[in-house]
């Protein structure tokens, strides 16, 4: 395989990738995303988990440590088949909160704290740098494999130069396709498509090499199984600690590696794709691992002793003379390396620009959100520079380390570093009590231990940590030796760092969270994250926004781009039912705008920019209380309305009752007119009849005297009737003259009983009295009071229908009043008539034995009103009962 053909094929492959990315971008732009957003593409894009470390390194790992390499793929398999636990929630949160990176997730969850964003960003960059260097190294090594075959005529290419060209090319590709859109949620269709193609290439390449090895070099499956047992790999010593520990760390890493978070959460177009990936991604991992052991076994068997097992994937086909297969394998490795570097660079650059560069730029220009200037341009430029910087860091690391360490070791160190985010992340999405302070302490603790125990020693003794410190501890403190913390020796260095960093990270995170108190924004975000499935929208953080819609628009234009911002504002205005581009700056709208901006520059920066426009009016406890107060007011108002409507209902009921009474009174009035005509006509008729008789001359004297007596009686009856009417009229108009005197109540009652006894004197009638209680002086118009008593007692005599009529008189003193109850043992007054008995001319029974005209009780009522007391019918006493209430002393 001539080396120049290899170079040409690589370049051609890169051009094809450019083409794929370009076409995908064009289609997406033209609204033809279609299958670009299929679950298959999503799953394939996840394959950036399988880097050159997998492609080349897994075989080397298997050759050195047997089946232990499988743990790196079994951990992610468990996470994906258990997608319902964590992945589903992460993806939902990522979409709802428009999370742009893992640093943004942590920063947004813990109250949009940019400090945490910076911490996570620095950790991620530091952990990813050796990993990027590893990819550069693997491609360089694979070039060297081919170059070693070149005839002497070809100069061996300079490895450093290869890595430099590669880094430069990747920077160009990433900048071209990775920074077209600012909004991370708009997804990088071109890049996702390109890495999906690369995913297919690397899978096909590895499967092809595997099939060639099993059926071409060895004699099939059974032969391979026999060779496995016969090979040095069969003597591998399984270390239980490493098996469990590495499964755990790889499971953690797939959730926390910045590049995995990028493709898994940020680039996710549809939550249902996660369901497909839950089986398809483990399947991909399994296929990638399927032929690793056979290739390692055969490589150890046929390759000369001392050859690098990391490169068996290339060297076996080459030594067997299968040049084209080797070329395919080379492209597979190239794909693995480049796709990882591209996505990692985008993820890290987003974090660096959103959490470090943009906040710094904003801080350096105070009040700049209002000032003119192209924020969008600044952010894009910072992102491009960050991509360059990340790749430059990787290259520098590669250059300095000399690319000698085994691939697997570097990858695992990076994994343990990324896993430090796990406690803060899981705590953040499952535990509302997790706080900013706890997360910061946990992250910094875990990161420091990782740095001290694993990262720095990885440069080898005499590197960044001197051999003396490694052996004796810093300043001779033995229990601080980097690989034997607290004096516990004999641990595997990787497990040692993993155990202490995760243990202390988690415990300081928990203790810090338990001991600290979260701010209001943090609590709002905590609820929004933990209860993501219970609510459709996040909490509105902006309650009293002082921001003007116009200011917001001019700021958004500089971040989202003019067209995009105007489209967003117009849509929001339309949603509010307004025309034009300026919606009302309601809290809801501002919160939505903030989320939109967060998709471009991260939650913390977006929050800070809106806070500038809102006059620094970030949400505070007072605001929350104000919101609660408003809700309380609304509640009270509705309660008031309810009370008012109750009151209206009561009034309506009272009116209806009054109306009924009026109708009844009108009927009564008609009855009264006919009654009074009748009352007046009966005596008049007899008077006229007898006076006519008296006019006859020959009338005997005794007859004449008798008839004159009748006429006289009838006239008196007429006069009494007219007197009563007159009396009532005077009483009703309150024009009566009262003769206030003092009398003993007992004497008054006795007089009344005596006076009433000539009413139906034939009847046996018992009056029960309690003399002791009756003795009390009353200051009132005694004649009028007597009139009332007489009326009541004679009524009882008249109407009581009991066999043995009994009238009970009870006198009680109630405060400043005295109550006199007259209770008989008759059948009482029907309920419907009780309201009418005090009306004029109300006569319930027929008038046969009624002596009066039905004015008695009406007069009584008016008298009592004039005396400052009252008379009421007392229902439920087993007979007719009247209560006369009288003040003991007349109010002046």
């Amino acid at each position, binding site marked *: 395989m001539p080396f120049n053909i290899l170079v040409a094929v690589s370049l051609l492959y890169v051009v094809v990738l450019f083409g794929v990315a370009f076409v995908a971008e064009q289609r997406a732009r033209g609204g033809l995303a279609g299958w670009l957003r299929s679950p298959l593409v999503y799953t394939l894009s996840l394959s950036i988990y399988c880097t050159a470390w997998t492609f080349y390194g897994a075989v080397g790992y298997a050759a050195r440590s*047997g*089946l232990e390499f*499988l743990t790196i793929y*079994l951990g992610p*398999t*468990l*996470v*994906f*088949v*258990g*997608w*319902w*636990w964590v992945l*589903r929630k992460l993806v939902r949160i990522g979409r709802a909160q428009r999370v742009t990176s893992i640093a943004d997730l942590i920063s947004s969850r813990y109250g949009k704290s940019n400090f945490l964003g910076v911490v996570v960003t620095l950790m991620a960059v530091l952990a990813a740098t050796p990993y990027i260097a590893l990819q550069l190294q693997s491609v360089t090594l694979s070039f060297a494999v081919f170059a070693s075959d070149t005839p002497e005529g070809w100069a061996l290419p300079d490895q450093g130069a290869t890595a430099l060209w590669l880094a430069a090319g990747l920077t160009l590709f990433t900048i071209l396709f990775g920074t077209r859109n600012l909004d991370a949620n708009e997804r990088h269709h071109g890049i996702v498509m390109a890495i999906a193609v690369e995913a297919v290439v690397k899978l096909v390449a590895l499967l092809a090499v595997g099939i060639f090895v099993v059926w071409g070099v060895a004699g099939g499956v059974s032969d391979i*199984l*026999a060779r*496995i*047992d*016969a090979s040095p*790999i*069969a*003597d*591998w*010593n*399984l270390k*239980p600690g490493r*098996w*469990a520990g590495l*499964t755990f760390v790889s499971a953690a890493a797939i959730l926390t590696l910045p590049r995995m978070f990028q493709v898994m959460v940020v680039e996710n177009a549809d*939550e*249902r794709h996660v*369901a*497909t990936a*839950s*089986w398809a991604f*483990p*399947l991909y991992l*399994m296929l990638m691992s*399927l032929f690793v*052991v056979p290739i390692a076994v055969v490589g150890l068997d046929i390759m000369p002793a001392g050859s690098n097992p990391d490169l068996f994937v290339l060297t076996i086909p080459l030594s067997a003379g299968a040049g084209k297969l080797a070329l395919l394998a080379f492209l597979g490795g190239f794909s693995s390396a480049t796709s990882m570097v591209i996505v990692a660079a985008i993820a890290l650059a987003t974090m660096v620009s959103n959490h470090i560069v943009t906040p710094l730029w904003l801080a350096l220009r105070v009040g700049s959100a209002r000032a003119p200037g192209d924020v969008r341009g600044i952010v894009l430029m910072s992102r491009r520079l960050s991509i360059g910087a990340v790749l430059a860091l990787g290259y520098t690391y590669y250059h300095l380390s000399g690319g000698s360490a085994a691939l697997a070791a570097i990858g695992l160190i990076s994994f343990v570093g990324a896993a430090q985010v796990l406690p803060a992340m899981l705590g953040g999405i499952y535990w509302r009590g997790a706080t900013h302070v706890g997360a910061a302490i946990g992250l910094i603790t875990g990161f420091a231990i990782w740095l001290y125990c694993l990262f720095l020693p990885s440069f080898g003794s005499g590197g960044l940590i001197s051999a003396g410190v490694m052996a004796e501890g810093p300043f001779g403190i033995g229990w601080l030796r980097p690989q034997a913390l607290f004096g516990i020796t004999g641990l595997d260095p990787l497990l040692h760092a993993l155990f202490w960093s995760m243990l202390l990270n988690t415990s300081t995170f928990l203790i810090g969270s338990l001991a600290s108190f979260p701010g209001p924004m943090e609590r709002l975000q905590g609820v929004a994250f933990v209860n993501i499935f*219970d609510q459709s929208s996040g909490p509105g953080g902006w309650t009293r926004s002082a921001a003007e819609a116009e200011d917001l628009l001019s700021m958004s234009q500089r971040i989202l781009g003019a067209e995009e911002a105007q489209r967003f504002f117009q849509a929001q205005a339309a949603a509010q039912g307004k025309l034009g581009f300026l919606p009302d700056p309601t809290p809801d709208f501002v919160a939505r705008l903030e989320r939109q901006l967060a998709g471009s520059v991260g939650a913390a920066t977006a929050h800070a920019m809106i806070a500038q426009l809102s006059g620094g009016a970030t949400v505070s406890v007072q605001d929350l209380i104000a919101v609660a107060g408003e809700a309380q007011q609304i509640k009270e108002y509705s309660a008031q309305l309810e009370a008012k409507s109750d009151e209206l209902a009561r009034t309506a009921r009272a009116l209806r009752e009054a109306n009924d009474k009026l109708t009844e009174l009108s009927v009564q009035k008609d009855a009264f007119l006919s009654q009074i005509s009748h009352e007046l006509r009966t005596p008049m008729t007899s008077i006229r009849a007898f006076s006519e008789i008296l006019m006859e001359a020959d009338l005997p004297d005794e007859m004449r005297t008798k008839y004159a007596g009748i006429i006289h009686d009838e006239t008196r009856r007429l006069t009494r009737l007219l007197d009563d009417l007159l009396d009532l009229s005077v009483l009703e108009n309150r024009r009566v003259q009262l003769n206030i005197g003092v009398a003993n109540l007992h004497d008054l009652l006795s007089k009344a009983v005596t006076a009433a006894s000539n009413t139906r004197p034939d009847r046996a009638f018992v009056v029960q009295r309690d003399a002791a209680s009756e003795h009390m002086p009353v200051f009132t118009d005694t004649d009028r009071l007597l009139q009332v008593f007489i009326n009541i007692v004679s009524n009882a005599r008249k109407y009581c229908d009991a066999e043995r009529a009994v009238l009970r008189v009870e006198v009680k003193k109630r405060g400043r009043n005295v109550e006199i109850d007259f209770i008989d043992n008759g059948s009482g007054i029907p309920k419907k008539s009780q309201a009418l008995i005090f009306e004029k001319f109300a006569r319930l029974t027929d008038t046969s034995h009624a002596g009066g005209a039905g004015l008695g009780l009406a007069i009584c009522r008016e008298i009592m009103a004039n005396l400052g007391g009252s008379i009421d019918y007392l229902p439920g006493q087993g007979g007719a009962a009247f209560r006369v209430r009288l003040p003991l002393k007349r109010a002046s």
Partner: protein
Amino acid sequence: MPHNQPLFLARRSYRRRRMMDAVRLLPVFGAALLMLPLLWQPAETPEPDTAHGVVYLFAIWLLLIVAALSLSRGLAPALLAPEEPVRPGTGEDDGAEGEAG
């Protein structure tokens, strides 16, 4: 647990709930099975049996993939559709007389 969730679910929703339980349990079972090698000492077995170990691990792996595949088919629609309560009179109930549906 929100109070507005229906007490009795339609048969399809009930199946989905049980699938959610299953998909939550799957990684637990998977982890238990994949941790078997902790008890395994390949270097000390009289006959080399690493090949058996390879076959065992890949078999479990395949089993997990198949289980995840069948569960994800049932659960993907559940990500969007709300749960429906049992509708009286349709003959659908929460599986009291037949779990095998």
